[in-house]
Each structure stands twice: as C-alpha cells, then as structure tokens.
C-alpha cells in the first residue's frame, strides 16, 4: 500500500479575482494519514473539496488510482467525506444514517443492518443503532459520521476539521481514536485542520498551507525541526527568526553572520546573500546550566518569564533590541531585568527558504 493513490497536479482555484489555490501539486500515498494544516483562508478546505468533488478546480487535474476524476461528481468518486458539522440525517436513526451509503449502492436491508452494526461497533458506539442523531453528544455524532463514511469502504476518507466543534479534552481523546482507527482500517485519511498540535498528534505527513500554496510538507518531526519556510516555522509552534548574511559557503554548508554570532548551518547559499534562520525557543536557554555542546550568545537582558509547568518561558532582549523567545529552567528562578548569557544549541538552526 505504498503506491501513489492520488495525484493532484497544478491545481488552481479562482473565485472571480480571488485566487484561493495557486498551482498546488500534491501526491497522496495509499494508506497514509495526511493532514492539511493551515490558517483559515489558506485554501486547505478548498483543496479537500476538490478532492471530494464538491468543487471543480479552475485549472489542474485530480487523479485517483490513475483515473482522472477532476470533473467526476462526489457520488461517483471512491471518496467519502466527514463534515465539520457532521451532517447526519436528522430524521433518520443512527442505523439508517450509517446504512444510507449502502442503500444507495443497492445493498439489501438485512445486509445493511449487519454492516451498519459492524461499523458502529468499530467506532465504539454499538448501542446507538436505534437512536436519533439529536439524542447523541457531539463526540458520539462525530463517531456516527465516521462510521457512515467508512461503511462504504472508500479508498480515500476526507475529514473537514472533524474535531473543530469538540471541546479541547474530547478533541485530544478523539485524535488518538482517529489515529488508531486509521491504523486499523488502513484507509487513506486526508484531514484538514488549523490546530498544529492536532496535526502533529495524528499525521504521518503534514502539508502546511498558506495563501493558496504549499509552504512545507513532511513528517511532523521534519516540519517541526526542519521547517522549510518562515511561515512553516512560525505556524508550527513558536520560533525565533534571525536575519543574517552568508559570509562563507562550502559544499552544502553556509556560515551566516547573525546577531548571535557566526553560525554554521546546513544549506547552499551564495556568499553575501541575505538569509533567515529559524531557532526554536527550547534551543535558547536563558540562565542555568546548558547541555554540553551549546554555545554562548551575546549578553542579553531577561525581560519576562512565564511559568508553564514543565519549564519557564522567557523573553530576552539582545543589545541591539532584538527580542528572542527562550527557555529558562525552573530551578534557576530567574529574575526579571538581570543580565544573562543565553546558551544556544547551534545545531538546531535552520536555514529558511525565504
């Protein structure tokens, strides 16, 4: 199941003068859990609608299993969608909701019931069969919507911010269940969200979208530790962006002059080029003892610390006025206004594309 299931090539979507998607190309591998992550207006939901057949792209093609489905209606695609508001049929019992897709495929009543019960058991709601949707809680409706989509055995399950309407605790719980469910059924999931924690928790691969383009894609670890662009670095958690200039370059490495000193990073750039580097707050330590191999930065002033449980979040100001986010150890009980020498894990610096 490692073949390419979906090929989207040069998808452009325009509404009047507004370009929602700008030549987006994306391949989806069979069996993977793909997350489209981005802020509202980034085009992620439009891309999902194009996959599901609810929108037709202005330009570009969509191939599923090698077959061109760009203009195929949703009913004739091997896809099923779980909507953000669940979109259960309010006048039908849960059992009939789940059996609806099978009914449309001409499956007999008895076989439908058996399959619907199996699907409900799979999502952990076997007792809901005879109830009406309005008798269920938000999380239960979500499961029914999942069962209703999975029972027709789609090649591709599309989830449009399916956890968006749930409260935080339930959302984290459903994340785990969703991931476990995907592993069990092996169906390819494409999941849209703006919640980066959710994306990191469930995705095999994250596609970061912004302003109608793909900014970055890769495993959650890759996106977090090696973001490709400034947007990806800032959207996936917090990050410091350092401006600098390349002063030396050699086979795949560049030495960049920054406010923190000369830093050696991976990447190919010409000498003299202006570049940006990303560094996570947890790779700058304000006070206390730093792990071996970390290098000292210029003297800075600690302006603010915030207790976050596992650690302190700190803001430090460099002599030239640059503000950086850093970590302060809990044991150090740092004082605001004191001068410190921040320690930097220079290996974690990432050279950004923009």
């Amino acid at each position, binding site marked *: 199941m490692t073949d390419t299931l979906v090929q989207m090539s040069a998808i452009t979507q325009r509404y009047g003068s507004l370009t929602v998607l700008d030549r987006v190309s994306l391949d989806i591998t069979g069996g993977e859990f793909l997350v489209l992550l981005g802020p509202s207006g980034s085009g992620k939901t439009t891309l999902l609608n194009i996959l599901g057949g609810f929108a037709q792209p202005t330009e570009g093609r969509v191939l599923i299993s090698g077959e061109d489905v760009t203009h195929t209606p949703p009913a004739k695609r091997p896809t099923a969608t779980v909507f953000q508001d669940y979109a259960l049929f309010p006048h*039908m019992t849960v059992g009939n909701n789940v059996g*609806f897709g099978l009914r449309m495929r001409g499956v007999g009543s008895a076989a439908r019931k058996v399959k619907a019960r199996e699907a409900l058991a799979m999502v952990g709601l076997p007792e809901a069969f005879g109830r009406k949707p309005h008798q269920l809680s938000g999380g239960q409706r979500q499961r029914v919507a999942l069962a209703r989509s999975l029972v027709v055995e789609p090649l591709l399950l599309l989830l449009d911010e399916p956890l968006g309407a749930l409260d935080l605790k339930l959302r984290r719980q459903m994340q785990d269940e969703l991931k476990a469910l995907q592993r069990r059924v092996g169906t390819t999931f494409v999941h849209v969200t703006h919640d980066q924690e959710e994306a990191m928790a469930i995705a095999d691969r994250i596609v970061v979208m912004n302003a109608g383009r793909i900014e970055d894609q890769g495993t959650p670890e890759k996106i977090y530790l090696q973001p490709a662009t400034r947007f990806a670095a800032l959207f996936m958690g917090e990050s410091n962006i350092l401006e600098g200039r390349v002063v030396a370059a050699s086979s795949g490495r560049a030495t960049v002059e920054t406010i923190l000193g000369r830093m050696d990073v991976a990447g190919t750039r010409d000498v003299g080029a202006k570049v940006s580097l990303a560094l996570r707050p947890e790779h700058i330590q304000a006070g206390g003892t730093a792990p071996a191999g970390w290098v000292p930065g210029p003297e800075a002033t600690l302006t603010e610390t915030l207790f976050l449980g596992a650690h302190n979040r700190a803001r430090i100001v460099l002599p030239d006025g640059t503000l950086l986010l850093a970590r302060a150890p809990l044991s150090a009980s740092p004082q605001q206004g004191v001068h410190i020498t921040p320690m930097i894990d220079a290996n974690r610096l990432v050279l950004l594309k923009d």
Partner: protein
Amino acid sequence: MPRPLNILTGVYALAIYGFIFLPVAVLVLFSFQGTLIPVPPFNGPSLRWYNAVFADRRLMAGLWNSFLVAVFSSALSVFLGFLAAYGFARFRFPGKGPLNGLMTAPLSVSYLIIGMGLLISFNWLGVPKSLIAAGIGHVVINMPLCFAILYSQMGDHQVNIERAARDLGAAEWQVLGLVTAPMLWPALFASFFLSVTFSWDEFIISFLLTRFDNTLPVEIWSLLRSGLSPKTNAIGSLVFLVSTVLVVLLELTLFRKPKS
C-alpha cells in the same frame, strides 16, 4: 392599578373578542334553530337543518368538489413550491433576486384580479370552466405561499447534509426525496394545510372558473340568493368547523417550536 381602569380594560377586551367572534357564534347558534328563519327568538336546539344539509345533493356534491379541489390543488402547490424553493435556496443563477420577487408577487394581487385574469386566459386558450380550472386558480394563489414558507425553512445548515447524501452516492432525486423533503416535513405539512384552508373557503376564483360542478362556497352563495335560512347557517357552521380543525393542525405543525 385603580379598579375602574381594570374594569374598563376588561370591557374593552370583551368588546374586541365579541366583535370578532359574535357573528360566528350567532351563525353557529342559529344553525340549531328549530323554526324556519334564523332570527331571534332562538327555538331549539334542533338538528333539522343539519339533516336538511346532509340530504341536499347539491350541497354534498359541493362539499366533495371543494374537498377534491383543495387536496389536489394544495398537493400541487406544495410540490411546485418545494421544487422552486429548492432551486432558489441551493443554486445561483442570473436574475435570482428579481425572479424570487416575482415568485411571491401574486400574494399581493387580489383574488378578483387573478380570477378575472385566469378567466380571460382560459377563454382565449379554449379551456372550459370546470373544477380543474378552479383548481389551477387555487394553485396560482397558493403556490407562492408554499414557496415562501418552504424557502424560509431551507437553511444553509441543510446544505452539508444534502452534500453528505450526494457524497454517499445519492442521485439528485434521491437527495430531494430521502433527505431534503423529510427534513422539511413540518414545513411541507404546514404549507399543505394552509393551502387547503385557503382553497376550502375561496369563493371568487371558484365562482368565476366553475360552471356545472361547483365548490361549496359557490353553492352556499347560490343558496343565499333565495334568502336566509337556518340551512345556510348549518352548512356555514360545517365549513367553519373544517377550517378550525385545519387551523389547529397548522398550529401544531408550523408554529410549534422545533425540538432541536
């Protein structure tokens, strides 16, 4: 609050309700009159005029005709209104705003004008006066009403539910029949019974467009031409009873708060 004012408001309220309901109360009361003329003094109660109504073939035929016209014209009004509302609620097309206005415009035209217009049009087209012609007239007056009710009930929250049905393989007619219509069931029911109510006691269009077979209001009108009789009171009371039942049904459907 001072007592005299209290009494005054009570009297005023009584006068208002009396003004509205006294004529109907008098009509119903004298339908039980035992003598030949429906004027005081009241001699009764007696069911002789109800017996006379049920024995009158013309009135019974009119009752049946009214029932047929009301049911069939209302069913057609609801069907056409539902399709139109679905089109306006779910699709974009040029001239949607003005066309929407035109759909409901007949609501503000008097029945007399609509009746005369239809009479002239049917004459010109060679359509004979009949119950069918009257039924078409009732569709003209009731379809805009059904459209307005159903259109107001088709919200955006149902769009995703219909998409879900399509996504699961439903053809367009299956979406309409299995999802959209059942979700709108109370509104469909209400617009049907509202149409039946209006069709049931509509006079002028039926009067202009029928000839040999007449609806009940037209029969009552011809009965009234030969003077007052407790028999007209009795049939009037029956018409009123049916209308009341329909209004109560409406109250229970359209104006009831939805559960969730």
